[in-house]
């Protein structure tokens, strides 16, 4: 079929906050409407270009590449005719985003046959018609006749478009909703010019020709233009970074660097090393990765503390260049996982740096390579479930508190579509029940209400969603997956040999850095090789702790060669799960796994790092049983060798590849594709692979039962698991931090809290420090610094813990102390920092106890009085000439000191938690009679199999889903004596989830259970206890 019209002006949802449909949906609809060509012309960008090209080829549509370039004054649709046209357009869009005085007519080349311009701006067309081919764009509407007349007058051929913003008329309300959200308006207050007309959907050729009965030329021109636009190749060529030092033979340079690395890493070479190196270098050179390695090595060398991870850690070359620190030969890491002759996609090396050094590093490499050659990958930020509900509710004018009531009940990962389906199913069954008379005719639940989408999560139990909430949730579910804006990816960088803007438009992010318009998947598909430089808080913890150790003890530890894998004390704390604060091993699930396994050696820790993903992996129990001596048979003799080190269980990503190769005879490439499909969880593709896998297994004589079991393991966790090199890289960092925790606990815990971002709150880490025998004194004006400081058996709270204190006040305080020494009295402090500290800052300092050492004979109320009076005097208006003499000192009345309970309350108010006593001590009287019969945490293990009562202060929580799809929760509590784990199974969870939060004490009742020697409490009943400090908790 050859239609007589082609849509040349089409917006997908990548025209952020304007368009509604994905490129896939547009291609599908276009095919359905009988079109053979379709253009995608998103506003000022190629944001979804790669997806569009893919979708077009899947739908059998010839794609036309273009963009609508909009400025404040004018707008035009530009279509690329040739690859050169694409490059010109990409540069043009880049200039549109990066130049303040961008002018469309001035930015277009002098004479070009590579582009076509469609616009309804006569002035623009007049200026451009001699330089590029121009058409007058006519969109059907009230003024189309007028536009046709103008086109004739200025002598530019007309072309019909529908400036499509949505696939069907039904999507118009969604467009209006997006506009209302984007403009911060309500549906009612949207002006006509805020939205496009309701008719701007993907009309069929016949519908379009009906709109132009008197101008067939405008329709025919669309076909002419479409035919002249070259379909871009579906596959972009790979673009590698280029090492700067262009004059040398780069392979020789790489070999030289590796040789240097052998001397550094191994001392002397051997046949094993030589063979592996030769194999790797050959493949690296054949695949064109020589420069890539040199560039990454060059970046990594600029910072001492870093951690190369991902599949790149399997490479000996990375190890020798200092990119990674795990010896691939010693730990048997296969290079094939990183580079393989059959691998079609681009592997990448991820390198972690301390979080606070990353920005400086980026500046350094941007200066080195030039801003033209380097840009960041972007993120396409979409509406997540909570955000979409919040935004739609705002459009409906719902009060913020009501919105919070609903969104705070939604679990973090909840998908509205799924909830909606579940809700509808639930509503259906409720309706049936009501019909059969089981529920007495429904109290207040009208027929319409029954069909409304509902949330099935127990948090919504007894919480009715009154109108217009059902409407809001329905609309919000349609917003999911629509991108909202683009932001900077956390670490992906592209470095190209010439200019990034040749390949993809570049724009400036909110942070002020240059980002490309594609997110990582599209960038990868388009052949841009990225380098991931990510921020990692634990590396900063290690760096700071090493610095503190050097300062306090004079002991210098070199990070790169620091390898505490065989240190017995480190192994001991790891084997016991005493790893709060330790990188990657600190989550409750991981600590429990470590404790249950009771192994502290490196190899097992590597297994644990991967098998823990996801935490509810049901093979963990099997693994532990086998570890503790259960007899097991390999699933199949062919798998015996592959899975021997993992006790016959699939643990790493490459296990999937190897199993598929061994059982079904897959080639490496095929097996690797299977691994990828499993991680992406595409159902259709998975089904297809399953058939091929079964067929392959059958050919090799593998029984159906084994196939079933192996497939089950594939799908149960391979989507989350790590590859072994990555796991090993992480485990090494874990060992380094565990070493510091074992040998220099105060310095380490101080660094953990100071760097923030750990799994637990500062309060939980302080409790852990106390359990480790470290004394934790509060902040002190002369002793504390900004961050926590550890030395010997003491960890001093830093000023960073003071909530609500202004940053500039803190900086002034520390600067003054460094310049002119410590403070000796409160008045001196206030005088020296006059104008820098506000009264609120000073009161926070006093209430946190930081001024206790300089307040002399004054008590706390008198201190507060002095501060208030001092500031009142300073800010009082001067009525007469200022006095020549010093003002008289402030008279302070005799005030009684606070009762003992006030100090912890002040600490909670200023630091977020009481420091001088445990909150449970304060809660003592509130527990009542039952509080006396509780069992302390350290004696919990003596009560296995019995029901007990315990007091608990929440530490952390993790909600998971059971196999049956019911919610349950793992909750970690602590009391004055220790930390303990509890489980709320679905029934108790349903009853108590609305009562559980992180800011109350709880009285728990339940059964103590033990698994592999580790006790936990299965909670039957939880009672919230209010102690009056709730508001202060951080």
């Amino acid at each position: 079929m050859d239609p007589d019209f082609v849509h040349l002006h089409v917006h997908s949802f990548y025209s952020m906050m304007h368009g509604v449909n994905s490129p896939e949906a547009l291609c599908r609809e276009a095919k359905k409407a009988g079109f053979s060509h379709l253009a995608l012309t998103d506003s000022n960008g190629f944001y979804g270009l790669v997806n569009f090209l893919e979708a077009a080829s899947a739908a059998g549509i010839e794609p036309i590449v273009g963009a609508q370039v909009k400025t404040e004054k004018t707008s035009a649709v530009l279509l690329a005719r040739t690859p050169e046209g694409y490059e010109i357009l990409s540069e043009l869009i880049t200039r549109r985003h990066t130049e303040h005085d961008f002018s469309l007519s001035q930015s277009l080349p002098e004479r070009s046959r590579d582009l076509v311009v469609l616009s309804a701006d006569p002035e623009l067309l007049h200026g451009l018609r001699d330089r590029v081919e121009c058409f007058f764009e006519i969109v059907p509407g009230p003024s189309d006749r007028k536009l046709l007349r103008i086109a004739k007058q200025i002598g530019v051929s007309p072309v019909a478009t529908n400036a499509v913003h949505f696939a069907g008329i039904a999507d118009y309300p969604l467009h209006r909703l997006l506009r209302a959200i984007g403009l911060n308006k309500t549906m009612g207050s949207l002006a006509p010019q805020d939205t496009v007309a309701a008719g701007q959907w993907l009309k069929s050729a016949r519908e379009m020709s009906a709109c132009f009965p008197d101008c067939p030329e405008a329709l025919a021109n669309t076909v002419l233009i479409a035919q002249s636009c070259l379909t871009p190749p579906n596959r972009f060529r790979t673009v590698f970074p280029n090492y700067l030092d262009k004059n040398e033979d780069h392979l020789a340079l790489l070999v030289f660097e590796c040789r240097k690395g052998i001397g550094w890493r191994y001392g002397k070479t051997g046949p094993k090393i030589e063979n592996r190196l030769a194999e790797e270098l050959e493949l690296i050179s054949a695949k064109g990765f020589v420069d890539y390695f040199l560039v990454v090595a060059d970046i990594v060398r600029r910072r001492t503390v870093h951690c190369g991870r991902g599949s790149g850690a399997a490479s000996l070359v990375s190890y020798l260049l200092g990119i990674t620190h795990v010896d691939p030969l010693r730990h048997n890491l296969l290079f094939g996982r990183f580079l393989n002759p059959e691998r079609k996609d681009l592997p990448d090396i991820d390198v972690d740096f301390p979080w606070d050094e990353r920005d400086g590093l980026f500046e350094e490499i941007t200066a080195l390579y030039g801003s033209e050659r380097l840009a960041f990958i972007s993120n396409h930020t979409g509406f997540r479930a909570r955000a979409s509900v919040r935004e739609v509710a705002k459009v409906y004018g719902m009060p913020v508190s009501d919105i919070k009531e609903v969104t705070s009940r939604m679990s973090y990962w909840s998908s509205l579509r799924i909830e909606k389906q579940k809700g509808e199913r639930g509503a259906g069954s409720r309706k049936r029940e009501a019909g059969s008379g089981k529920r007495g005719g429904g109290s207040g639940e009208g027929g319409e209400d029954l069909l409304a989408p509902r949330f099935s999560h127990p948090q919504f139990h007894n919480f009715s969603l009154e109108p217009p909430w059902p409407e809001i949730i329905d609309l919000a579910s349609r917003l999911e997956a629509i991108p909202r804006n683009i932001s900077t990816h956390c670490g992906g960088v592209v470095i190209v040999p010439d200019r990034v803007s040749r390949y993809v438009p570049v724009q400036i992010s909110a942070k002020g850095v240059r980002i490309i318009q594609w997110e990582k998947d599209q960038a990868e598909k388009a052949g841009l090789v990225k380098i991931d430089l990510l921020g990692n808080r634990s590396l900063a913890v290690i760096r700071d702790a090493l610095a503190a150790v050097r300062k306090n003890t004079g002991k210098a530890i070199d990070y790169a060669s620091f390898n505490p894998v065989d240190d017995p004390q480190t192994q001991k704390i790891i084997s016991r799960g005493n790893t709060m604060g330790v990188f990657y091993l600190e989550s409750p699930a991981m600590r429990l796994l470590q404790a249950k396994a009771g192994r502290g050696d490196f190899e097992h820790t590597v297994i644990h790092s991967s098998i823990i993903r996801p935490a509810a992996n049901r093979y963990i129990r099997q693994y532990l049983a086998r570890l503790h001596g259960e007899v097991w048979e390999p699933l199949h003799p062919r798998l015996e060798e592959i899975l021997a080190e993992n006790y016959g269980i699939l643990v790493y990503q490459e296990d999937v590849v190897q199993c598929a190769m061994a059982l079904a005879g897959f080639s490496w490439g095929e097996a690797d594709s299977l691994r990828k499909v499993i991680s992406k969880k595409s159902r259709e593709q998975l089904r297809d692979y399953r058939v091929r896998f079964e067929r392959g297994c059958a050919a090799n004589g593998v029984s159906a039962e084994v196939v079933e079991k192996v497939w089950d393991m594939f799908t149960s966790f391979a989507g989350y698991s790590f590859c072994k090199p990555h796991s090993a890289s992480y485990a090494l960092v874990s060992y380094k931090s565990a070493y510091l925790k074992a040998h220099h606990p105060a310095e380490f815990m101080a660094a953990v809290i100071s760097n923030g971002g750990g799994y637990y709150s500062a309060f939980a880490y302080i409790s852990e420090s106390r359990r480790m025998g470290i004394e934790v004194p509060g902040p002190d004006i002369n002793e504390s610094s900004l961050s926590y400081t550890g030395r010997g058996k003491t960890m001093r709270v830093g000023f960073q813990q003071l909530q609500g204190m202004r940053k500039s006040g803190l900086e002034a305080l520390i600067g003054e102390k460094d310049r002119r020494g410590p403070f000796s009295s409160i008045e001196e402090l206030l005088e020296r920092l006059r104008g820098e500290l506000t009264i609120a800052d000073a009161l926070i300092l006093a209430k946190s106890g930081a001024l206790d050492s300089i307040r002399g004979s004054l008590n706390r109320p008198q201190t507060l009085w002095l501060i208030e009076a001092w500031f009142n005097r300073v800010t009082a208006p001067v009525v007469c000439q200022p006095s020549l003499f010093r003002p008289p000192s402030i008279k302070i009345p005799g005030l009684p000191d606070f009762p003992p309970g006030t100090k912890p309350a002040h600490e909670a108010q200023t630091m977020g938690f009481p420091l001088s006593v445990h909150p449970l001590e304060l809660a003592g009287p509130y527990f009542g009679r039952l509080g006396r019969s509780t069992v302390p945490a350290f004696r919990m293990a003596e009560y296995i199999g019995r029901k007990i009562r315990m007091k608990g202060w929440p530490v952390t929580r993790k909600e998971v889903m059971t196999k049956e799809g019911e919610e349950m929760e793992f909750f970690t509590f602590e009391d004055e004596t220790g930390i303990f784990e509890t489980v709320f199974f679905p029934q108790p969870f349903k009853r108590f989830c609305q009562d559980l939060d992180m800011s109350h004490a709880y009285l728990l009742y339940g059964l103590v259970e033990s698994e592999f020697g580790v006790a936990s409490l299965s909670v039957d009943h939880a009672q919230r206890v209010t102690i009056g400090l709730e508001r202060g908790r951080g």
Partner: protein
Amino acid sequence: MVRNIVHMQIRDFCAALEELRRPELKRGPLVLAQAGERAVIQGVNEPARKEGLREGLALSLARRRCRRLQVMVADFYHYREKHLEIVRELGLCSPLVEGSGPGSYFIDITGTRRLFGAGPDLACRMEKELSAKMGLRARVGLASNKLVSQVAAQCMAPGDLGFIFPGNEEAFLSPLPVDFLPGVGEVTASKLAGFNILRIGQLASFPGDMLAAVFGRNGERLVKIAKGLDTSAVFVSKESQRISVSKIMERDEIDPGRLESALFEQVEEAGWDLRRLNRRPGRLRLEIRYADGLSVDTQKRLPFWSLQADRPLFQSVLPAFHQIFRRRVAVRGLLMEFSDLAMPSAQLPLFTWKNQKGSEERDLQEALDSIRLKFGKKIIAWARAV
């Protein structure tokens, strides 16, 4: 001359009135709120207070916290009527009666000894009569000024009298917590608590200038009230005639079109009342209550020519509405109040052939009203309000 000021306080006045109407409500927790699931509590009774429910709490939340909660729709017209009735009742004992709020009254009985007997007797009698006539129990305070009598009432149980002998004010106040003092709000109380000043006596012991170091000019006032010194007079409340129409939306509304129709409906109602009273409004007060409990209002002086017809009246209300409807939050209710009512007086036309400005509008309105008078108020309406 020593003054004698009685303070009568009826706690949870609105809820108490509802309990009088329906005594069966007395036993359980009761709250007053507007209709609709998402309303906010406007009044509570004692059992509800014990359950932790307070004014301003969302009704849905209150229902979740307290399963056996009884909810009544607040009837402010009734409460206001009762309040005025009490003021009138108390007026029999003294011309100086101040109804400072619903359920809170100051009566100056200075110099009435010869007429009604001793102050405490009179105060007791007033309470007894209130209880007998209206069934409401008040806490009564009698002292030489408004401040102390108010605190005295606060310390008593309902039906009891607290009499503070003149000269004993400071001694009486001294052991009480500082937040018992009227005029010491949350902020001042928490600041005082910061200095560990918790009792009124502690506060009273300060020399005024010392407190000024931390409280500024407020310091002197604090010391004064802590010593029980208050010279303020009892203000007689006066009511001026006004027409007010309030509307609670069926569901929270944000669409400007629908809000304008609701507003027009209110204008129609107010206009009808104005025309029946033959008054023109001099001042408009418009209040928007948003769904999150926040309300905004504006006042406007209306032009002098008589605005009695619906459409011109609406045209003068609409700008006020647009002026305050600025937030992106749905509206729960609208309150329109016309005051400064006066006789419409327009100069008669000198030349009969010249049509007077707005006469068509007035004729149309009159025609509409005559239909309404004949067939009922709801029989005809402007399309805009439908």
